[in-house]
């Protein structure tokens, strides 16, 4: 019943328009080096989005993933091409890691018709269904039950595909978290819920620390209340995350039962672009966290194995510059959605 689809060599561009090529086409996904390269690109990309926001090119909210890259990278590295996933609103990097063209992601942030959601969604609603990315969602916790139902559907259709859901530490205090994972635990008993739950614990929900938001700080343990196996991993080390991801995904795929992993990470930037002063944490705390930058940690590992050296690193960073610059140019040059788009896709059926 395996149902593997080979990664398309030239993935169709979102909105079916030409855009900068995906960085992931250059190397095999399996290679750690390729993932290092992609993490560098994603980091540069996020820095650029913050610039563009300050320049008024991007509107609404903007939540960047800087500091948390190893979590999404580790899991998406192990996800099969025909698997699917859902995220919250901190979703640009996930889209890029899955193979979306940075230009299409940037164009979405710019509100252009070439954007990953045709300019309808913006930062919080990246969608790339052709690659199994079923979207970013803005209501905290609101996407969780969708992922549970999606996992059920995958098994119902008789496939061995799995569904991944990323959620934040803050989302664990929402009612829908409880209802959804109780359902997942029940459906898992029947082998009908091949779901991997990834808690991106970056220590804060906006300005509220885990200890001030949750009566228990061992978040993974909460999954025991739903009979969902759970573990806690260092979310700053790509290799560690990837190993845990491989285990969890294989488990969910073979058993049809949900698995949960709490990845402990940290948000380097403010909650959103508006969170400038960050009165809820100290400069020192941020410094200490930055000392364990996931991109640097992976770089050092690769230097250790000889796969990377000074020049190679410099080259990758330079390439990242170009890719991000191209993405910005693509976004700048893309047209805004035509007025007719206003009433498009409200309904699927006529009248």
């Amino acid at each position: 019943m395996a149902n593997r689809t080979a990664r398309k060599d030239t993935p169709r561009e979102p909105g079916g328009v030409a855009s900068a090529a995906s960085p992931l086409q250059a190397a095999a996904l399996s290679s750690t080096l390729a993932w290092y390269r992609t993490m560098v690109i994603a980091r540069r990309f996020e820095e650029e989005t913050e610039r563009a926001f300050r320049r008024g090119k991007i509107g609404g909210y903007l939540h960047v993933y800087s500091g948390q890259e190893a979590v999404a990278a580790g899991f998406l590295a192990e996800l099969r091409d025909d698997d699917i996933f859902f995220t919250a609103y901190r979703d640009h990097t996930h889209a890029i890691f899955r193979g979306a063209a940075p230009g299409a992601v940037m164009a979405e942030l710019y509100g252009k018709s070439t954007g990953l959601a045709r300019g309808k969604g913006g930062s919080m609603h990246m969608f790339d269904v052709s690659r199994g990315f079923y979207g970013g969602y803005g209501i905290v916790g609101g996407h969780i039950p969708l992922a549970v139902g999606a996992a059920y559907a995958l098994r119902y259709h008789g496939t061995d595909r799995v569904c991944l859901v990323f959620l934040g530490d803050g989302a664990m205090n929402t009612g829908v978290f409880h209802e959804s994972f109780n359902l997942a635990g029940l459906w898992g008993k029947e082998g009908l819920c091949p779901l991997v739950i990834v808690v991106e614990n970056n220590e804060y929900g906006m300005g509220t620390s885990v200890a001030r938001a949750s009566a228990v700080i061992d978040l993974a343990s909460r999954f025991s209340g739903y009979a969902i196996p759970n573990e806690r991993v260092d979310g700053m080390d790509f290799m560690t995350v990837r190993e845990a991801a491989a285990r969890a995904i294989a488990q969910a795929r073979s058993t049809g039962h949900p698995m949960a992993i709490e990845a402990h990470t940290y948000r380097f930037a403010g909650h959103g672009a508006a969170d400038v002063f960050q009165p809820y944490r100290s400069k020192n705390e941020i410094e200490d966290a930055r000392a364990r930058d996931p991109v640097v940690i992976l770089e050092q590992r690769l230097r250790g194995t000889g796969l990377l050296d000074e020049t190679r690193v410099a080259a990758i960073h330079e390439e990242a510059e170009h890719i991000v610059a191209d993405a910005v140019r693509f976004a700048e040059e893309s047209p805004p959605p035509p007025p007719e788009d206003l009433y498009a896709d409200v309904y699927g059926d006529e009248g």
Partner: protein
Amino acid sequence: MAELSYRDAIRSTLIEEMDRDPSIVLLGEDIGVYQGTFRITADLLARYGAKRVIDTPISEAGFVGAAIGMAMLGLRPVVEVMTWNFSLVAFDQIINNAAKVRYFSGGQVDVPLVIRGPNGAGVQLSAQHSQSVEAFYAHVPGLRVATPATPAEAKGLLRTAMRGRDPVIFLEHAALYSHKGDVPDGDFALPFGAAEIARPGRDVTIVAYSRMVSVALEAADHLAEDGIAAEVINLRTLRPLDHRTMIESVSRTHRAVVVQEQWRPFGAAAEIAATITEGAFDLLDAPVERVTGADVPMPYARNLEQLVLPHAEDVVRAARRTLYREESKSGAPMTEGRRDG
């Protein structure tokens, strides 16, 4: 043509569609082992198995949300809310996900989801269990809202809902489940947005939906005894709303009454009255009258509950007011003032 109860019309449609399309699954509280609180799903667990007839915990937000995810991944979930009152705990899932995900994804997903169950009041269930939620849901783009008044409509509209690509809020009325009526055989389906003229007449148009259609028809009988020929329009769906049929009727009758079970302020009748007035202002000989439930949480005591609900006599009086055969409510009674809180 067979005579079926409203309940059996719904149940047989579920069976016909489930036999035809294996991607249809049912979810809800006590729809399986318990056989459904209104027995709509009786025997379906035995017939289709636990994979297609899913008993859920008391987790409306969870299982409505799960059904949205299922719909995005190619299933056709039909969710039963035990009553629509309980949909309020799933309100965010319905409004912010089901209704909008197609749009904010730039059209990358379908959401062929039907949420169905009993709506409305009338059997002393008191304040938390007697609501009509149509005004909440009909306000939201991305949703379709059906309000069947007869067994035939229950079947025809449910079939259309179950074959569509969009989320449908399917509002049954608990007080109608045992009502019987003729239902066309076979693949009978009714389009959304097409109202029916339930009774033709030339003197005044009475617009209603769901259970209030029978109240309107009863009123029309009384009016007839009085020589007043009322035309009764059964809207069938509130979103889309059939403007044309209403305007066309009022352009003949020059008078209109709208009947609604729920609270008057910001209720569904306001949209209907405003729509008629906008479309037929010069043709109206009197303001569109609204007959609605009283603006209070539903009380338990039967005598008070009966005071809340609209009755045929209320519709008759309103119709007569549009014909200036009854003095108007101007200088509205004390209760009127309190109606708006």
